[in-house]
């Protein structure tokens, strides 16, 4: 099986708390445990952004955790899916008017799936994760699509100039 096949069967998740009240975090933990068991979809909770495919974010983004959130997002390899878990992560929720809050996660990084609820129920999280699996597959296909170039790629010092190539992709 090719690498993309493994990604489809076992996407690993990374969980980051950007300033939440722990409510959604313990529901994510409950999801990983026997009663709800998202591991049946091949998901494993990992602590390493460089090995993860799905980023689960809980809580509104505080001014201090924003830097870390962007850093973690940047370290994750493509293709990646971002899930905002809970009302606070989606919109800022009850914390929206507070002085140390940037707002929902989508103010900082692009979000693919929004999971509502305070705290979001495990069933909703599973629904969100399964939706994310579909998006992940779609993004994988998008990345693997071959591109038609207008002109022959420019070579410099024996290497293909990627910046030049990006400008020549046929839309």
């Amino acid at each position: 099986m090719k690498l993309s096949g493994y990604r489809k069967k076992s996407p690993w998740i990374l969980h980051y708390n950007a300033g939440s009240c722990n409510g959604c975090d313990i529901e994510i933990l409950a999801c990983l445990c026997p009663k709800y068991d998202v591991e049946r979809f091949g998901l494993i909770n990992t602590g390493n952004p460089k090995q993860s495919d799905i980023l689960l974010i809980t809580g509104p983004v505080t001014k201090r955790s924003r830097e870390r959130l962007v850093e973690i997002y940047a370290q994750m390899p493509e293709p990646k899916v971002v899930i905002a878990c809970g009302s606070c992560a989606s919109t800022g929720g009850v914390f929206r008017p507070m002085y140390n809050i940037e707002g929902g996660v989508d103010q900082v990084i692009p979000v693919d799936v929004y999971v509502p609820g305070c705290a979001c129920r495990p069933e909703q999280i599973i629904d969100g994760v399964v939706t994310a699996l579909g998006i992940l597959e779609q993004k994988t296909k998008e990345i693997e699509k071959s591109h038609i170039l207008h002109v022959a790629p420019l070579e410099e010092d024996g290497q293909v100039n990627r910046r030049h190539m990006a400008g020549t992709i046929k839309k």
Partner: protein
Amino acid sequence: MATQYDIPVGAQHISLLEPLHFKLTTENEKIVDVQANVGYVHRGIELACTSKFKFRQVSFVVGRVCGLCSISHTTAYSQVAEKLLNLELSKRAKYLRILVLELDRIHSHLLCLSHVAENSGFEALFMKTMKDREISMELLEAVCGNRVQYDYSVVGGVARDLRPEVAQMVLARLNDFKPKLDDLREIFENNYSLSLKNRGIGVLSSENVKLLNAVGPLARAAGVPIDVRNETEDLLPWKEVGFNMVLGDAGDVHARNMVRIHELYNSIQMIENVINGLPEGDIITETKAMPEGEAVVRLEAPRGELFHYAKGNKTQILERLKIKAPTFSNIPAFIETFKGNEYASAPAIIASFDPCLSCTAR
């Protein structure tokens, strides 16, 4: 002297639920110094409570300080607001508050125990404990209507009455839960592999508890009897429903586990007493008064003593609200406990503190 290395744990780490940063200075695997950095989740709830929200809404906002002990925050705030309003609660409302506080303690302590097991490297026990914890989550959902963030206490009483069939269900499910708890106690007490990671690790002596003002299970595991439930009777009748102090002696990770497990037995007993002796009465006391004056309330959250202070000036908006969370008092003790342990034990020690950073930073 061997070379010292600084090893960061956090802010994002597999063994942490929350952004918490420890800088561990190590020397040959031994931790010699620790710096804790806890402010990642500061949101500014106290200021918003005194400017954006009316005092009756604040009980819902302070619940969002922490999802694990949300009932402790809502109850403590409701009590402090009732003091400002000079409101006397019916006994039924007080009993129902105890019921949900103790159910919440069961789920919080089991979460902490499962986390200790996971961070000690015992994944099967983590799964087992989390499976048993679902019983308390289902009961909380049946009693309050939501799994997390119950918003059960409101200013003047409680939001929902306990229906007789739900009361019967709580008693029946807790009866099912008891043998499972016995199983867990057996594993946590006697398992050899777990004892290698837990016994004699992360010792906090009773002198240090007194010196560094530790509270909650951390203090009780070292044999220091600090429990608000034992000290105050005026707001909630703890002694009446059968509260017993649980004390450990060694002060290590294992003693903390055992204190938590024995508190679960006590919580189950209290819930049964509450349901069997539930008095009749209104669940909510209405008033048109405005909050006036100053008041302080202490309440035993699952992690220790929770402190709420409020000041009102006869308007809808409070003048000041101050929350002091148990983890905030425990941070100096955390730092002391790390010293002299191996670096590999650090995750288990962090989990055994049961840190709640969203309470601390607010």
